[in-house]
């Protein structure tokens, strides 16, 4: 349990720089998720925190103490690997108790702590088995058990659920979440799955190409993405990002491809200004007095209806929670509340403030 600070961290492999000055402040007991597309440096950052890679420049502090030059064993962190990395020649109990054994705890203490952790994770009956005798989900639990018996300052997870099937993933997601509630230990969790990030995090760090794009709570990222990248990355289906300009009346949007979308209130940017307009699919509604559109494709997911709309040649995705009696090819009218619209500068791709 400890705050974790990363200051101006950079990392180069030979001549290749993969992290470009990362600054993150994590509070004590916070669940922080690092998310971003493949190759953006999430794992590398996690491994810097763990000490599995040497930091090139910058500093990492755990509980106020600089750890950048310490061996992993001296950082008091625990890590759950994507491959689980269980020791094949040790039983579940030995795997879980290994760090205690290395620390020189008595056999009695080892046994008690392992049993406690096994109870939390429902691993009791498996303690004498070897990793090869376990299912993927059970191995995953053992890997978590190995981390929690230590009661470390910080937990690190690198895509721990990516080897599980969809159903188990959802279950483990909430289990890890409730484990965090119970243990209250700082967690840094890497994933490329934005849904995992949204559902689990207290704080999300969105990364791209070795840079931090935005840090904030899930709802902050959802409601006020700092730039086009974050806007497109968070949320599923992805936000519609439309290029064009604000209409002369300030409350309409002229699409670059032709056509106009009208809004119920001013959009919060100067009339005539070129912008990228972001609309979340779930903010689109059908209304009699809306802007004209045609239904191109309907995809029912069961719970929702995903609809591709054609607005004068520009495609707009919409998600409806209610069952609508619409069909492909039908002409409709779409409406979006002006306060739900996101505006970005086309040059810098940054959010335009004041909306």
């Amino acid at each position, binding site marked *: 349990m400890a705050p974790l600070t990363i200051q101006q961290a950079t990392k180069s492999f030979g001549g290749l720089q993969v992290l470009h000055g990362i600054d993150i402040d994590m509070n004590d007991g916070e669940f922080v998720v690092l998310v971003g597309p493949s190759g953006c440096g999430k794992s590398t950052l996690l491994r810097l925190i*763990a*000490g*599995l890679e040497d930091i090139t420049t910058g500093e990492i502090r755990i509980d106020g103490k600089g750890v950048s030059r310490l*061996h*992993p*064993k001296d950082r008091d*962190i*625990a*890590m759950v*690997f994507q*491959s689980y*990395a*269980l*020791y*094949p*020649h040790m039983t579940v109990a030995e795997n879980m108790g*290994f*760090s205690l054994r*290395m*620390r020189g705890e008595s056999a009695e203490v080892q046994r008690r702590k392992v049993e406690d952790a096994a109870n939390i994770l429902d691993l009791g009956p498996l303690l004498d088995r070897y990793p*090869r005798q376990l299912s993927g989900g059970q191995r995953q639990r053992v890997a978590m058990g*190995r981390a929690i018996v*230590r009661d470390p300052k910080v937990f690190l997870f690198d895509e721990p659920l990516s080897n599980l099937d969809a159903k188990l993933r959802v279950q483990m997601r909430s289990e890890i979440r409730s484990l965090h509630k119970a243990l209250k230990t700082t967690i840094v969790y890497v994933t490329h799955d934005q849904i995992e990030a949204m559902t689990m995090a207290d704080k999300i760090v969105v990364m791209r190409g070795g840079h931090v794009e935005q840090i904030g709570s899930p709802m902050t990222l959802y409601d006020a993405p700092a730039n086009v990248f974050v806007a497109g990355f968070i949320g599923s289906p992805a936000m519609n990002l439309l290029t064009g300009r604000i209409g002369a009346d300030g409350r309409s949007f002229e699409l670059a491809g032709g056509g106009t979308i009208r809004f119920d209130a001013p959009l919060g940017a100067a009339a005539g200004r070129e912008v990228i307009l972001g609309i979340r699919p779930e903010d689109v509604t059908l209304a009699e007095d809306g802007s004209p559109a045609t239904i191109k494709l309907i995809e029912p997911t069961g719970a929702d209806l995903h609809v591709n709309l054609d607005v004068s040649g520009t495609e707009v995705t919409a998600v409806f929670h209610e069952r609508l009696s619409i069909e492909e090819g039908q002409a409709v009218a779409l409406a979006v509340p002006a306060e739900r619209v996101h505006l970005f500068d086309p040059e810098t791709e940054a959010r335009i403030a004041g909306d």
Partner: protein
Amino acid sequence: MSAQSHPGRQRTTWLIFIGLCLFTFVNLMPLLWAVLTSLKDPRDAFTIPPTLIFEPTLKYHIEVWTENDFVFYLMNSLIVSAGTVFISVPAGSLAAYAISRIPRRSAGPILSALFTIRMFPHMLLAIPFFVMGTFLDMIDTYPLLILALVAINQPFTIWLMHGFFLEIPRDLDEAAAIDGCSNWQAFRIVILPLAKPGMTVAALFSLLLSYNEFLFALVLTGTDTKTLPVAIAAFGGEDISSWSLSAAGAIGIMLPIVVVMLLLQRHLVRGLTAGAVKG
């Protein structure tokens, strides 16, 4: 997928089995011949066609083990072999582990260099070793022969162990480091136990090499440390009557290896097939 239930497949299995039996038999012929010869009187040994019916005698086996200092040479061989194995395998494992954990582009040249050493004709190395041995006044001592054998054996041991260590995921080293192991502890407590099948194979190969090695043993030993292969070579040759004795000696030299093989069989099969199937 039961083979028994399928007549066609069963027949194929039998054909393969019979084929393998024949193959094994052909391969064992010289050995069989040696066994028979060692049990025959020299007069019977060279009749043509060879007789299968003869009066077996253990005379030559007894002679081998009781006269000719066979046991003395055997002890020399065992000392040299054990010395070689106990230096070569630990040192080779350490080197191989290190090579398996450094970046590939640094490991490549090292492995190629080792391979080159391996390809180098031993004949050309024997003379320098002799010169060095003379210079250091170590000719006819165990350490000299052991060091020489370790030297020629090392590339192979490292190559072999390197393959085994590569198969042990690095995540395990890293998990161990995070669990509180120093690099040395991670190697000793986590990695080494997993490399055991590999080490068994490496030990066996280096045992076979050093036990059977002839050239270096001939050049670097004398009366005190002569090993079995060198000694046995002197057994036969002069006259026909010593062929039975030679054969008995050949059987005698094989016996320790057969015993070791039988003892290690279980580990050996595991080691040779390790990695073939994902555990």
